[in-house]
């Protein structure tokens, strides 16, 4: 078993003439909590979409746990051990909490017998029990009799994580899990993710909240304009001039430009 759960080598994606992802390579160490950060429009979510097969890659390779997956259809990639949450909540609004979580089990239950198993009719069955337990472990009630559309935002965000987890991924992709959460909800989410990480699941997270990233992650990859500009520990990120420039602009050029304008 290799040390890396994910190897991305030289992937490239163009939308028309626009290079959205330009020759990005990165590895995700098994058991790590890696963050993928960068300014708006850097291509972070696009990387997730390429990994999960929403878009095909134009060049390069994606190897998940020793297996090349870039040619595998989107619906089959989850079987190989990768699932994700979404930047904007993408729970099924007309399904209950339990049903949303049971959808996450789908990849493990694709045989004819499992497809025709009456999940909804038997109040006690192993799939339903497992979904309830997964919610309980994440500190979420099962909210019987409620469709998820009516639940608080912070709860919905965590249900998305639970739904991704019940597919039993080796690699969990989280797209801005803390966006829009208050302090208490962010802490609850962090506790949940630490628990997930301890159970042996590798986490790759796109996040804007640097405080959250510092607390959770042990490794950071920075993208800007579709290119990788830095890779290192969360502490190093703050010292790196290229990253500071990407986020804040160049410090010394600003006054110089002003003086040249004035003269």
């Amino acid at each position, binding site marked *: 078993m290799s040390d890396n759960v994910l190897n991305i080598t030289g992937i490239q994606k163009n939308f028309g003439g626009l290079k959205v992802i330009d020759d990005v390579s990165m590895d995700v160490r098994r058991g790590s909590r890696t963050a993928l950060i960068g300014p708006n429009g850097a291509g972070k979510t696009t990387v997730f979409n390429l990994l*999960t*097969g*929403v878009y095909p890659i134009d060049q390069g390779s994606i190897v998940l746990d020793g297996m090349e997956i870039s040619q595998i259809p*989107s*619906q*089959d990639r*989850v*079987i190989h051990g990768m*699932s*994700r949450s*979404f930047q904007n909540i*993408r729970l*099924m*609004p*007309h*399904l*209950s909490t339990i*049903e949303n979580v*049971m*959808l*996450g089990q*789908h*990849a493990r*239950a*694709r045989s004819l017998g*499992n*497809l*025709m*198993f*009456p*999940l*909804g*009719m038997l109040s006690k069955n192993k*799939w339903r029990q497992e979904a309830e337990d997964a919610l309980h472990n994440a500190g979420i009630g099962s909210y*019987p*009799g*409620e*469709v998820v559309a*009516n639940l608080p935002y912070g709860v919905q965000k965590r249900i998305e994580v639970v*739904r991704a987890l019940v*597919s039993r991924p080796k690699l969990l992709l989280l797209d801005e899990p803390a966006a829009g959460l208050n302090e208490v909800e962010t802490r609850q989410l962090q506790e949940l993710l630490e628990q997930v990480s301890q159970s042996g699941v590798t986490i790759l997270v796109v996040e804007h909240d640097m405080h959250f990233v510092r607390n959770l992650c042990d490794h950071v990859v920075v993208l800007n304009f579709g290119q990788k500009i830095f890779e290192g520990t969360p502490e190093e990120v703050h010292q790196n001039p290229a990253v500071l420039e990407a986020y804040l602009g160049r410090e010394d050029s600003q006054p110089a430009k002003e003086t040249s304008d004035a003269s």
Partner: protein
Amino acid sequence: MSGYLESQLIILCLSIIYAYGIFLPAASGQLNLGAAGFITLGAYASGWFNLSDGLGVSMPLSVVMAMLFTGAISFAIAFPILRTRGVYMVLATFAFAEVVSGLTINMEFLGAAAGMPVDDHAAVEIVVIAAIGVTLFSFYFMSTRLGLALRSIHDDESVSVLFGVNVRLAKVAAFTVGGMLMGLGGAMYGHHYNYIEAQAFNVLLSIYILLYVLLGGTQTAWGPLVGAIFFTVVPELIRNLAIEIGSDWLADSRFIFFGAFIVLMMVIRPEGVVTRTMQDRVASALAGRRKDTGETE
């Protein structure tokens, strides 16, 4: 049972069977306006298989064969039709029904425009049992993991894909099983009335059945049942009311009120009469009351 009630019961049972045939694909968001085509296929297939000039098999066998026949045709056309979406799927299924109608009316061995007599008779009880069976089957079908996948596809197709749902397969399965149910409905129609003509299965029938399903609600298996009962019973109630108060005007114009009522329902409950939330609230209210009475006893 009086002849009038019996005839209304038959219409109700057939409507329920048809409605579930349209509901199963509609649960995943596919709008099928071709009900008449599938019903025609089922009715003529079972009639001809049963006819002594045809295959001459017994009625139970001819009904099963008609369901398989309609299912096979549904399966075959599912692949091109399910490439279309929304209003284009409505048009494609409508076109399919027109093709079936046009073919049937020109086939001499099926009686052409003169219609076809059907040999064996299905009594009221058989039609009622078929409707109950279809209802129970549909409740089971929607409670399976495949049913869950269909409802997920309805809400968000691309996310369903990312969780491993084979969207194409699920849609084809729902469309095919729905076609089989409508084949059964058609076969029941033919064997009960012992006479079929292609003109009886027109576009108005397709529209009505799709309306049953959409107004009843596509989120739960209660929807088509409520929709079919509502559409069959309410116009008759208004008619009886008109006879009761002796108003010819009301009897003649009942469909104006009915139409206005449909528009009203669409405004008040755009997701259908029975929604998922409503089902859960009723279920928990019933469970609560049961618990209350349990404690007082």
